[in-house]
């Protein structure tokens, strides 16, 4: 049992020691996942509000598919993106495999349905009333979208943070399309997986602590900004 306590002790030492590799790994994780969540947030918000408001044939089926897509397995997304981007694949000439760009592409595919699903769900429940309000106030499409962003701020923030949380914590997709290359595509989750398989539990634990803390901070910050009371 000692090795667990040792692991935590070494973990804190590692965090304090400003190990440059650890910080570049954290940095890349944040950049990749924030970018993915932003892009997916943009797509997802627009798509979620539009499809949530509009009445169309097969909306029920659309909702089922959308909710299923919210649980896309990261490895499957990783596999698909890897097939597309690998040298022999249809987009191989872009030479994107094993780059941070490939990781963002995979994470956007993973996160977009999540944001869309959450926004869609909220819009179906409350969107009509916001829309009517916007109409009553005599606003155009842009003004109504603005009203949505204002009225549903907390929910949209929650959708974004959920998406970010999913992106920053998944390992399956980034491992496959990024390749866990040191100083290039190594992020927190692949770092944890790799060090675990190398028997370096302290490093894994250290990074796990950082990952959890960051998720906590992101949540706290966003909910605070959104003015939630609890």
């Amino acid at each position: 049992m000692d090795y667990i306590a040792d692991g935590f002790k070494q973990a804190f030492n590692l965090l304090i020691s400003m190990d440059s590799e650890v910080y570049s790994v954290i940095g890349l994780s944040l950049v990749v996942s924030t970018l993915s969540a932003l892009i997916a947030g943009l797509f997802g918000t627009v798509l979620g509000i539009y499809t949530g408001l509009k009445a169309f044939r097969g909306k029920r089926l659309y909702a089922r598919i959308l909710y299923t897509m919210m649980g896309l397995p990261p490895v499957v997304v990783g596999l698909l993106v890897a097939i597309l981007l690998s040298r022999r694949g249809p987009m191989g000439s872009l030479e994107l495999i094993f780059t941070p760009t490939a990781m963002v592409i995979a994470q956007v595919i993973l996160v977009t349905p999540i944001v869309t699903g959450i926004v869609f769900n909220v819009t179906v429940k409350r969107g009509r009333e916001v829309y009517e309000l916007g109409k009553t106030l005599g606003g155009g499409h842009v003004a109504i979208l603005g009203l949505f962003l204002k009225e549903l701020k907390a929910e949209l923030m929650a959708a974004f943070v959920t998406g970010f949380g999913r992106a920053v914590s998944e390992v399956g997709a980034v491992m496959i399309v990024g390749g866990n290359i040191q100083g290039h595509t190594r992020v927190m989750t692949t770092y944890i997986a790799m060090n675990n398989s190398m028997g370096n539990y302290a490093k894994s634990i250290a990074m796990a602590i950082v990952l959890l803390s960051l998720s906590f901070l992101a949540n706290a910050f966003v909910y605070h900004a959104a003015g939630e009371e609890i």
Partner: protein
Amino acid sequence: MKMKFCSISKKSINTMLLTMLLLSLVLFGAGCSQPAPAEAPAETPAETPAETPAESTLPSLEGQTLILSTTTSTQDSGLLDFILPDFETKTGAEVKVVAVGSGAAIQMGVDGEADVLLVHAKADEEKFVADGHGLQRFSVMYNDFVVVGPSADPAALKGASFANAGEALKQIMDKGASFVSRGDDSGTHKKENSLWKLADMTPSGDQYVSAGKGMGDVLQMADELQAYTLTDRATYLSMKDNLELEIVTEGLDGLLNPYGVIAVNPDKNAQINAEAAQAFIDWIVSDEAQKLIGEYGVEKFGAPLFFPDAE
């Protein structure tokens, strides 16, 4: 309403039947394919009467499990799938294989998580025994490392002569080509580091890609990136058909890769199965298991992947 209900249940019965049919097909398929690999080892006892004394020394371990911590190369190359059924039929024990890098495999031994190790990092193995974590190291077999690279060979390694394998790696860097390193503290990674040391250089920069992954993944990555890498011959040969990589350097000093087997010190905890570990060692250094090791790969690749060298 009732009709509808009936038709649904009929439909679901149909679905169930179909599922059962599919399941039984799958099971039947598995049942058919399974005996095939087991056949070869199972037949050997019948044809060679000389093995009887060797077999009688192995205890019956019916119902017991043995945790074998080993490197990815023995697993990925298919060697274990080929030889382990022989041990399992002779002793009745079930072998649970944990295939990780040599560094992690040895760490599992240090932590008392495994019963027996089959690894290739000789210096670390000797240290492992000297530190009291393991009982004794026995040589089992060796294979060799090769340097593989894209067929275009941008670093011009093919046909070049080098004093040792380190010089070959150095030329890759000097010519500005890329090299993918395991970077995972595995036996192969340690071997690579020893070669850089031999050439008296520390590789760095964008040319040097440290992947932190297993051999199969690194070969795929080198293939994608048109880079060179150091690999054990076994894993390379078993994956060759899916790669555009070719062997560019082989047979040089420093490319031999010896594997050893060590029983983990049973004093570590009560769960360690020392009896099965000893039986495994007795078996793997026996003439018969050694013969199996030497046979593996001949049929499929035209050459053995591992060369037995137990004393």
